[in-house]
């Protein structure tokens, strides 16, 4: 049996959905951010698989940009979590109802 593109796409679909479930079901804001990283990774896997299958380097360039965006997102998202933690001493998203205190 040959490992075709479909296998990679299916795997990345499964990983993406686990990330979706993490975002929807967890209460811890840090774990929610980690789930977002997982979703970004699932999409990166799709991009690399398609890039290889089509012999086009554009997909891999896009992965570069996604990684830079993920780094920026992690830095800012965690800074926001730290700022929220100072106000409420919790990272439970159920406790965060407002943008303003």
């Amino acid at each position, binding site marked *: *049996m*040959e*490992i*075709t*593109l*479909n*296998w*990679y*796409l299916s*795997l990345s*679909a*499964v*990983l993406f*959905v*686990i*990330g*979706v*479930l*993490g975002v*929807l*079901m*967890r*209460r*811890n804001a*840090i*774990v929610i951010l980690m*789930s977002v*990283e*997982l979703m970004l*990774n699932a999409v990166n*896997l799709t991009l*690399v*698989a398609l*890039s*290889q*299958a*089509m*012999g086009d*380097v*554009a997909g*891999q*360039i896009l992965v*570069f*940009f996604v990684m*830079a*965006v*993920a*780094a920026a997102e*992690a*830095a*800012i998202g*965690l*800074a*926001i*979590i*730290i*700022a929220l933690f*100072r106000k409420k001493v*919790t*990272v439970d998203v159920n406790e965060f109802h407002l943008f303003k205190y």
Partner: protein
Amino acid sequence: MVAQLLFFLLAIVAIAAALGMLIARNPVNSALWLVLNLFCIAGLYLTLNAQFIGIIQILVYAGAIMVLFLFVIMLLNLAELPRREDIDWKRGAAFILGMGVLAQLVYIVAMSFDVLPHPPAAQEAVATGSAQVLARALFTEYALPFEVIGLLLLVATIGAVMLAKRRFV
């Protein structure tokens, strides 16, 4: 034969690690499961002949981003907080929604079986993964997005310093 074995091994470990991240109670355990998952994805990049992306994956994700996550978990000392069941099983709607997304994605992948391009000859595939090939596209055709990414990183630096640099601890 080796390729198939490697793919299935990496795929199973990647899915198991992602599930581990989803259900681990302690955020530190979640982070470590995610690191395992990122390593597996790096291995999958190698099976796709994307060597450079695979190394970058370990360098940036496992090496830098996850360290930042662990720092913040330790900074906030979350293990010491009173902890309830973190995963919300009552949110059945969320679970159904997630399964719906999965069904859609699998349906699309299954339907497009004939449409998807077949992997090209090995020789061509090797030529897409090296740093030189990436550089040729990155600094000529994609020069503007590259500069925009530079601006994004600048904004991230300034924003994070502004948000975190007040009197705290």
